[in-house]
């Protein structure tokens, strides 16, 4: 069902946990739908993400997507992080089953939500986050493909 890469990230998820004094925190999804992702960012004064952690309630691919997304933005400038797409997460994971694509979307949105939070708190403007709406439902199930 899952690629080796997904399983590897699921088995040994990177960056699990909280950051007490995070500069940006984002949470998306809800328990009703079966997945919640929460991302914590530590950002330095050059807008570089120096640390990132996640907490996820969800299935194997949700955990793997969170892990991969945090890896992909760690050490990056926020302008790069905001450009992280769910496709990039899927690619880095070597693919996801169609019914699990929403997990990668969730990861993308969780990163954006945390950056949005950082922008709000710091008063900065991050290019590319303008269309982000923190409360949007990111589920995009395609029943035909289940």
């Amino acid at each position, binding site marked *: 069902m899952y690629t080796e890469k997904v399983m590897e990230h*699921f*088995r040994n*998820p990177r960056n*699990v946990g*909280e950051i007490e004094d995070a500069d940006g925190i984002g*949470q998306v999804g809800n*328990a*009703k*739908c*079966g*997945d*919640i*992702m*929460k991302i914590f960012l530590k950002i330095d004064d050059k807008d570089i993400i120096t640390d990132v952690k996640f*907490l*996820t*309630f*969800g*299935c*194997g691919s*949700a*955990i793997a997507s969170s892990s991969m997304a945090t890896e992909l933005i760690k050490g990056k400038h926020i302008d790069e992080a905001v450009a992280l797409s769910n496709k990039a997460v899927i690619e880095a994971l070597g693919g996801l*089953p169609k*019914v*699990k694509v929403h997990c990668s979307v969730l990861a993308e949105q969780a990163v954006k939500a945390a950056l949005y939070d950082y922008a709000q708190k710091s008063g900065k403007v991050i290019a590319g986050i303008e269309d982000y709406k923190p409360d949007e439902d990111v*589920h995009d*199930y395609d029943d035909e493909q*289940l």
Partner: protein
Amino acid sequence: MMKQVYLDNAATTMVHKEVIETMDAYYGDLYGNPSSIYDFGQTAKKAINSARETIASVINAKADEIYFTGGGSESDNWAIKGVMAANRKKGNHIITSKIEHHAVLHTCEYLAKNGYEVTYLNVDSDGLISLSELEEAIRENTVLITIMFANNEIGTIQPIKEIGDIAKRHGALFHTDAVQAFGHVPIDVKEMNIDLLSSSAHKIHGPKGVGMLYIRKGIKIDNLIHGGAQESKKRAGTENVPGICGYSKAAEMAMDSMNERMSYVSGLRDRFLKKIPEAIENVRLNGHPTKRLPGNVNFSFEFIEGESLLLYLDMEGISASSGSACTSGALDPSHVLMAIGLPHEIAHGSLRLSLSEFTTEEDVDYTIEKLIGVVHRLRLMSPLYIRRK
């Protein structure tokens, strides 16, 4: 090699060695077609008729009331569609429950789209239907009541004899999906007033793709599969002789070991039921505490999601199942867990362990030990658990 613990016997079971041997004989030299008149075909015919006797004896039916099918789903579809089509003059109303297997539910939904009326009975938090709600639901035009014998997810066993009595009293037919119950708990179609009953071989260490429908003599039913004159003209298709003989062998073995097996397996089940809540906080037992299948264990673990749980258990060599939406790719968690009133987030964290006679006490203890670790690990990853602390 890593320890392997198979705890998904409600999904399918290991085929008994004796069953494989029985089948191999019919795949091998005895491949004749039972409808042929030469010796060779007649041997096959005798074999399936003797299988019919054996299977019938498990539920106290007569051999000529047993019709072999391609599995439990076909049996359910046939029972419901066949009876409704053949009794259209009497009415178009079906009564079922909200926790039936999809083979029953989706069939009813299909009929509902095609001019039939369906009442879906509620169940209580243990998964039991209410007999008074059933009785009130019966109308003039009620043709069929279809209520499963035992639930595949939470193991709850319905008051079948009482349902049979109500059906009989009101002149409705009673079908029960006994796919999870056949060979696992005693069934007597006469005493329980069951008119039709579905069973599937692969749930009792027999082969996949074989099942049967018991049809009480005299019941009007249309064919689901038309064609050749097999199965007394009621179910067409060249008989799956090896499969039927394997099914019979499995049924015979199930009958012979029934009492002993029930007490052994339910002993292991009760070990799970006792130890899991002792070892892990924030768990909820799903299904009735005592009126449940000997081999069924079902718990919800708060703050975590079922698919991850299964995958981590799989890494420890433990095969199990969940009512989580994520395992099936569905949006909502299992309709059964919803029907017994679980909130979504708790339903997502459910785990079904289904045992068999091959399960050992060590398997149980090994599973509990691993479960403690895996649940803990997932909770430490969960924003719901961490927030709560």
